[in-house]
């Protein structure tokens, strides 16, 4: 089911079974990361998914505040007993996640299908 979103940072969102799939777009830094955080947590709060899939293919840049948003999403999903998946990591995004040693705490998958097919 396609969902309405409140920000251009998340231009597309849908649910598939117990999964919530969000497409994130743009360069995320201290200026707009609070908006992203609100959107992700609001959608998770509304739909209470077992799987949160963040498609970051169209995210060309993230700073540490954006990484903190991902960590907050991870914590929320853990509270719900679910998992978070990241896909479409661009080089700069992968780079900052590696520097901050966050890659290992997320499920990084090849594509949305791999996330949807995995066991939550």
């Amino acid at each position, binding site marked *: 089911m396609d969902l309405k979103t409140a920000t251009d940072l998340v231009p597309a969102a849908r649910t598939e079974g117990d999964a919530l799939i969000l497409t994130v777009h743009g360069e995320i830094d201290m200026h707009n990361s609070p908006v992203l955080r609100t959107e992700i947590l609001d959608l998770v709060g509304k739909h209470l998914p077992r799987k949160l899939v963040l498609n970051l293919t169209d995210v060309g840049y993230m*700073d540490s505040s954006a990484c903190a948003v991902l960590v907050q999403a991870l914590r929320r999903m853990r509270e719900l007993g679910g998992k978070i998946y990241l896909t479409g990591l661009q080089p700069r995004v992968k780079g900052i996640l590696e520097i901050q040693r966050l890659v290992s705490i997320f499920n990084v998958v090849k594509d949305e299908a791999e996330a949807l097919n995995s066991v939550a």
Partner: protein
Amino acid sequence: MRLLSLETISDPARLAPVRHAVEAFCASCGFDEKAVGEIGLSVNEAMANVIRHAYSGQTDRPMRVDAEFQGDLLEIKIRDWGNGKDPSRVPPKQDLLIPGGLGLHCLRSLMDDIIFEPQPDGMLLTLKRKKR
């Protein structure tokens, strides 16, 4: 010698334009794409720390970024007129799931040297990176 000098304010909306300007400068100095991204991120993180900590979130305070490239060495100086707190005295982050402290870790990982010099009216941070 190549020089770049930017005066800006502590508004988070200014982070991206300054980062883009620094990245373009680094590219013109011959840094490769990966290094350009790392240096841009470092400047972003340093400025974000100024906004968050030196200026306690105020968005109208002055900041100055000066970059100098000579030989194979890039030096970027970020000056603020904030509370003078020295972030280098913050111990390294232990728990990845507790927010905060990631910015300084980025600087330490991506730049060859980072030097905090307290000023009578704020702080001067120098970031150094050699072109490899």
